[in-house]
């Protein structure tokens, strides 16, 4: 090992440039991997959540988005379908109406109705960092972790929502709520949500209508959709089919369709980001091959000497591969360290509403350092093979 370090120090600039090639590749792999990790965590949480219930919207929707409002009375019709354990009415409105949705790796802020008992059925269990769940009283609100950070709110504070757009009409309606709970971070949808009881959500739905319609619209009779939970052992895709067949005017979406769409999106994102990083690494690997070939060329007499004094083919091959692996390992450690620093720095400077966009996990650390090590090792194979097969007589007498 001592000799390897001295060999690297012997050609400082070349070693620095070669290791830099690996470092750049690993920084790219760390940042892209952390980006994909964060995105996948978001999707995984979402997939886990949506796999546990059947979303139902009105007939013109896809079950999740689009479409209009549904009569609350449909709740009873859906509950009567065999296999349904519980039906929760749901309403979701934008927390920042009129805001442009710029390119973002997070979810936009939203306000949603919440029945605390849904937590007993949902696959995604929400827990409280502080405060408590809604207890049914009007004017209470529970905030997701990012939402609370963005508005700098804590339990007991008041918050006025929805956020009034700068170009809002003079009759734009806002309500002031009291924060009673702040959720733990889930790394997925609830983080950017604010949760009120159904009656308050219905009022928000009504507020979105034009003044003319508001006077004739009884918000207490309508919702945006339903979250339907099955009895134990019920296949939710089959349940969605049954709801569609037995309840008119609604669209129940199969959870598996939504999960597949999420997983496919995540896989594509991961593939694109990781491919870009791997490309950078391959270039780094070529630099290692070049360096090692030059090292072999420069050390021909050394190789001849080592063979003369008893080094076997395996020993010579091992020495060069170890040196090449060491270059990879240093590149991996430095690259991961830099990548970690960059992602931590960027995460710290992200707006609270966005939350972290990079997620560095122990698995990613192992992947980055392990990949750099493997790359160095593989890059060393050809030069090491050439060195080990060298004719000792020719090597000893070379200039």
């Amino acid at each position, binding site marked *: 090992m001592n*000799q390897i370090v*001295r*060999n690297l*120090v*012997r050609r400082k600039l070349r070693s620095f440039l070669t290791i830099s090639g690996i470092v750049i590749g690993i920084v790219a792999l760390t940042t892209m991997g952390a980006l994909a990790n964060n995105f996948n965590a978001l999707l995984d949480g979402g997939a886990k959540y949506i796999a546990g219930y059947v979303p139902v919207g009105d007939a013109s929707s896809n079950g999740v988005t689009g479409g209009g409002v549904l009569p609350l009375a449909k709740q009873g019709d859906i509950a009567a379908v065999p296999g349904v354990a519980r039906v929760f009415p749901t309403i979701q409105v934008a927390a920042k109406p009129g805001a442009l949705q710029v390119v973002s790796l997070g979810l936009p802020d939203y306000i949603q109705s919440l029945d605390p008992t849904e937590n007993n059925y949902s696959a995604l269990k929400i827990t409280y960092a502080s405060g408590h769940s809604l207890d049914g009283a009007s004017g209470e609100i529970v905030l997701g972790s990012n939402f609370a950070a963005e508005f700098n709110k804590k339990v007991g504070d008041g918050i006025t929502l929805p956020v009034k757009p700068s170009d809002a009409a003079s009759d734009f309606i806002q309500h002031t709520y009291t924060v009673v709970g702040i959720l733990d971070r889930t790394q997925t949808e609830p983080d950017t949500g604010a949760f009120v009881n159904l009656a308050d959500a219905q009022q928000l739905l009504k507020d979105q209508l034009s003044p003319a319609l508001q006077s004739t619209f009884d918000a207490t009779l309508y919702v945006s959709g339903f979250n339907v939970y099955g009895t134990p052992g019920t296949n939710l895709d089959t349940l969605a089919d049954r709801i569609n067949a037995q309840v008119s005017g609604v669209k129940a979406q199969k959870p598996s369709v939504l999960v597949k769409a999420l997983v496919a999106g995540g896989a594509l994102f991961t593939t694109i980001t990781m491919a870009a990083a791997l490309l950078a690494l391959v270039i780094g690997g070529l630099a290692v091959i070049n360096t090692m070939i030059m090292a072999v060329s420069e050390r021909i*007499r*050394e190789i*001849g*000497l*080592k*063979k*003369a*004094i*008893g*080094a*076997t*083919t*395996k*020993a010579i091959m091992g020495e060069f591969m170890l040196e090449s692996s060491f270059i990879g390992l240093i590149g991996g450690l430095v690259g991961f360290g830099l990548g970690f620093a960059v992602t931590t720095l960027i995460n710290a400077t992200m707006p609270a509403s966005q939350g972290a966009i990079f997620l560095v996990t122990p698995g990613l650390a192992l992947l980055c350092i392990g990949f750099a090590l493997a790359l160095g090792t593989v890059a060393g194979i050809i030069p090491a093979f050439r060195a080990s097969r060298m004719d*000792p*007589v020719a090597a*000893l007498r070379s200039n």
Partner: protein
Amino acid sequence: MIEIDRLSKHYKQGKTVVRALDGVSFNIDSGEFVAIVGRSGSGKTTLLDSLGLLLRPTSGRIVIDGTDASSLKDDEKARLRSSKIGFIFQEYNLLPTLTALENVMLPLHYASKPKGDREWARALLEEVGLEDRMHHRPDQLSGGQQQRVAIARSLVNRPSLVLGDEPTGAVDSETSAQLAAIMRRMNRRHQVTFVLVTHDLDLAAETDRVIKLKDGKVVADETTAPASVAV
């Protein structure tokens, strides 16, 4: 003991076959101090490389301490070199990144010898008069000092045979005489056979036996009067 039996090494140069060694046979007893002399192209270096198992002969046998090296595979030869043969080269061939002591210890690494042999390496460096240069790198040593390091390195694995390829060829006559005296002393003290290929007649005169090659054949094999050397 080393037996060389009808050893030949032929090379092809275009359509011509060059007979670098042509049926060479002789024995060398343990502890001998032998010079191999001859003009350039006489086959001296080819013989030395063959004796060092670095070169595969076209035909013939080399037996070192009872082991017939002719049929050994490359890695078996490497192991035999590691245990039985030491080398001294004209250009020293020390690793520039290692200190004198580390260079001497290098063969121990390939022979997987225990670290306790570090003391033996130090003792050898003291024997060649480099006790105060152990931690110097080659570029901090003179040519003569580098060759003394190489002599110590050739002996560190306690070989039965040390092969020298023009060991005094890169130093002045005074240093050459010092190196010759050191090798002679090591030969006597450690009972190691030395076979030195040389153009240096002064060095050849220090040996017990001079084998002369011409056109790949032994043309003279003379025993000389043993020099008086302090052991």
